[in-house]
C-alpha cells in the first residue's frame, strides 16, 4: 500500500512537471492583448495574467517581444506579469541576463519593452549602464535616449569646467542631437549659447512659427466653442469675415519665441470672450504618422486638412510644452492645420493669458520641420 502511494506521488510529480513544462505562454499573451477600452476583455485577461505571472523566467523574452502591436492597456497588463516573473527570477538568481541584453540591443524590438528589459537587467548588473547607454543617443526609446543624453551633458559640463571649451561644445552639440526633453535641452542650450553657438530652438523642437490669424469672433458665455464660424467651413484668406466687432481679415503673424509661443493678448489684443482662428501649413515629403503637440491655457479645437482631430474645452489650467499630444497622419505635400483658440471672460489676473504654441514631432518627441520653411507664404493672400 505504502509502495503504491509512493509511486502515485512520483507519477503526480512527474505529470505536474510535464504540465508546467508544457505551459505555452503564447495563448495567455494573446488573450491579454485582446483587452480593449472600457474593460472589454478584462475578465479573460485577468485569468490569463494571473496564470502568466506564475510562469518561469523563460517567459520573460516572449512577453517583451509581445509588446509590439499591443495597445497601451495591454502593454501594462503584460508588464504586470513580466515584473512578477522577473522579481521571482531575480530572487532565484535565474534572470536570463544574456537574453535581456541581446533584447535591449535589438532596435527592431518595441522601445518600451527594451527599456523594461534594461531596467530589469541593471537590477542585477548595474555595470550594464556603462556598457549599453552610451550607444543610445538617437535611440527610439525616449528614456534610453534620455539616459544617453544625460551622460553627454555631464561629460560636456566636466570638459567645460576643465576649460576644454572646444571639446565641451562638441559634446554638448552631440547631446543636443538626441535631446527632446525640455529640461535637458535647456541644460545644453544655455552653456552652448555661452560658448557662442547659435541654436535654433524652433527648428530643434519643430515649432510652427508662421501663422495666418483671423478674429475675434464671439465667445460670450463660452458659446463660441461650439459655434461654427466661417473658417471652420472654408479657409479663404482673401475674404473679409463677420467677426465679433465687425469685419475681420486674415493676416500673417510670426513668432520669434524660442518655444514658438504666439501671444495673442500681447501681440494683437487682450480679447475677452473671443475666438481666434490660426492656420499654418505643413509640407510632408510622404505620408507619415506624426504628432501635433500643443500648449495653451485656452479652450481649443484643431483640424488638419479639414478633419477635426481633437477639441478641449478647458480654460486657464496652465500651459506647458507638449501639454496636449494629438496623433496625426500627414499627407504627402501640403497639409493645412487650423487651430481654433477660445478665450473666456474671467477677470482674475491668472485668467488673462491668450496664447499657444504648436509643434510637429515624431512619437519619440523629435521635432519635425515642414519641408518648406517658407510654408506660410503659400497661405498669404
Amino acid at each position: 500500500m505504502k509502495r503504491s502511494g509512493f509511486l502515485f506521488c512520483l507519477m503526480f510529480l512527474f505529470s505536474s512537471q510535464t504540465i508546467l513544462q508544457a505551459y505555452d505562454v503564447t495563448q495567455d499573451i494573446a488573450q491579454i492583448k485582446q483587452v480593449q477600452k472600457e474593460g472589454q476583455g478584462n475578465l479573460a485577461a485577468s485569468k490569463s495574467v494571473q496564470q502568466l505571472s506564475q510562469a518561469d523566467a523563460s517567459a520573460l523574452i516572449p512577453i517583451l517581444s509581445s509588446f509590439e502591436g499591443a495597445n497601451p492597456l495591454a502593454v501594462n497588463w503584460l508588464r504586470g506579469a513580466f515584473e512578477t516573473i522577473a522579481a521571482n527570477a531575480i530572487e532565484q538568481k535565474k534572470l536570463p541576463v544574456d537574453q535581456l541584453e541581446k533584447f535591449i540591443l535589438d532596435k527592431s524590438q518595441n522601445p518600451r519593452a527594451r527599456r523594461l528589459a534594461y531596467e530589469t537587467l541593471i537590477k542585477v548588473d548595474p555595470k550594464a549602464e556603462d556598457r549599453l547607454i552610451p550607444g543610445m543617443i538617437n535611440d527610439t526609446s525616449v528614456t534610453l535616449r534620455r539616459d544617453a543624453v544625460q551622460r553627454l551633458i555631464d561629460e560636456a559640463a566636466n570638459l567645460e569646467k576643465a576649460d576644454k571649451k572646444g571639446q565641451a561644445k562638441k559634446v554638448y552639440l552631440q547631446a543636443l542631437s538626441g535631446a527632446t526633453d525640455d529640461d535637458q535641452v535647456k541644460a545644453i542650450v544655455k552653456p552652448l549659447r555661452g560658448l557662442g553657438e547659435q541654436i535654433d530652438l524652433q527648428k530643434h523642437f519643430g515649432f510652427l512659427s508662421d501663422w495666418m490669424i483671423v478674429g475675434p469672433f464671439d465667445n460670450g458665455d463660452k458659446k463660441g466653442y461650439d459655434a461654427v464660424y466661417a473658417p471652420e467651413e472654408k479657409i479663404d484668406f482673401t475674404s473679409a469675415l463677420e467677426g465679433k466687432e465687425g469685419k475681420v481679415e486674415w493676416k500673417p503673424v510670426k513668432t520669434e519665441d524660442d518655444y514658438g509661443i504666439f501671444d495673442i493678448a500681447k501681440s494683437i489684443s487682450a480679447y475677452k470672450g473671443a475666438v481666434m482662428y490660426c492656420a499654418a501649413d505643413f509640407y510632408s515629403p510622404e505620408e507619415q504618422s506624426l504628432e501635433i503637440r500643443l500648449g495653451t491655457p485656452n479652450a481649443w479645437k484643431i483640424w488638419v486638412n479639414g478633419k477635426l482631430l481633437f477639441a478641449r474645452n478647458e480654460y486657464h489650467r496652465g500651459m506647458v510644452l507638449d501639454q496636449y499630444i494629438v496623433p496625426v497622419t500627414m499627407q504627402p505635400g501640403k497639409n493645412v492645420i487650423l487651430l481654433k483658440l477660445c478665450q473666456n471672460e474671467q477677470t482674475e489676473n491668472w485668467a488673462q493669458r491668450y496664447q499657444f504654441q504648436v509643434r510637429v514631432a515624431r512619437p519619440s518627441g523629435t521635432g519635425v520641420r515642414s519641408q518648406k520653411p517658407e510654408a506660410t507664404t503659400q497661405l498669404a493672400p
Partner: protein
Amino acid sequence: MKNEYVKLLIPLIAVGLCCGADWPQFRGSLTNNVATSETPPSKVSPENIAWTAELEGRGASGPIVVGDKVFITSTTGFKQDQLHLSCFDASTGKRLWERQFWATGRTQCHNKMCVATPTPASDGKRVFATFSSNDVVCLDLEGNLLWIRGLSHDYPNASNSLGMASSPIVVGETLIVPVENDDDSFTTGLDVKTGIARWKIKRPRVANWSSPAMLKSSPEAEALVLLQSSEGVDAVYPETGETAWQYEQGAGRIPSTTVGDNVLYVPSNGLTALAPGSSSEPPKVLWQEQKLSPGTASPLFYQKRVFTVNSAGVLTCANPEDGEVVWRLRLKGPFSATPIAAANHLYLVNEKGLLQVVQLAEEQGEVTGEIDLKATILATPAISDNSLFLRSDEHLWKISSK
C-alpha cells in the same frame, strides 16, 4: 480536536491584535479621518520613528495599511509617466514588492502636486491604485496583477491640466473613481473583481480635487457615497450610481465632506452641517458658519466636536450642534494633509514636514509633541498598528510609541 483549531487560531488572533485596524483608503475605513481603536504616541519625538523607508520619485498620495502591509504610490520619470505601487512590511519597513506601469493618460500637473496624488484603496483582498493619468490598477496583496483600466485612454478628454487628485474609495463591491474635470467629467463605479464599470455618471464640468466620502447612517443601513462638486453634494447608491438626494448650494473643490454622528460637514458657505436627505426629502441645512471655512485640509468630526484648519494654519474646534467656535489654536502651517484623530489626540503634519500632536480638551487644545521630518509633506497620514505612517517624496516613516 477543537483545541487543535483553537491553537491554530491563536497566532492569527495575535496578528490581528498586534496589527490593529486597517487604514484602507484616504481618511481611513469610514473616510472620516478617525481611528477608533488605535493609540498612536501622544507625545512624539524623533525617538518615536520606528523605521524609515526610502522612496523614489514623487508622491503626494497617502499610505494605506492592510494587515501587516503598507501600500504607497509614487511616480518617476521626467514626465512622471512611470507609475509605481509599492508594498512595505508594516513591522520592519522592508520593501516587499514593487510594480510599475506606464501612464496611458496625461501626466501634466501643477508643480505642487504630482501624478501620484490620489491615495490608493483596498478591500482587504485587493489594492487599487489610481493616478492623475486616470490609470487604475488592481493587484492582490502579494503584487499579482488582477486588472487594469485606463480611464483617460478610454475617454481622452477626461483630464485636468493641473492634475487629478481625488482619491478612490471602496464601498462594498464597488470602487468609486472620481474623474471630474473641465471637459469630459464623470465618476464611475468599478466592479472590484474585474474593473468593469457597474455605472458611470456625468458630473459637473468643473475641475474638482475633492474625494468621495461614505455615509452609513447605522451599521445596518445601506452605505451611500457622497460626491462633492462645485454644485454641492450628491448622495449616490454605490451599486448603481443612482442619486438618492442632492444638496445644491455649492461646495468647495479641494477639502472634502466628512461625516460624524450621521451629520455631513460640507465645505460649503464656510462649513455647512447637513442632515442627510432621503429619496422623498432633501437634506436639511442645520447651520452654516463662515468662521469654520477649511483651507486645503478636510474637516474632521471627533469626540462630539467639529474641527477645521484654515489656510492660516489655525485649528478651530466647534460645537457640532450650532457651529459655535469652542476654541482656536494657532499651529505652524500651512497644511495640505487632512488632520487625523485617535486616542483623544489630533495629528497634523504641515507642508514643511512638521508633525504636530494636539491633545484635546474641553477648554483648549494643546500641542503635546512635534517631530520635524524636514521634508515637504502633502499626504494625509495613516493610523494603524498603534502607529502613524507618513510619507514625503523620498521617505515613508512609521512613528510608534517607544
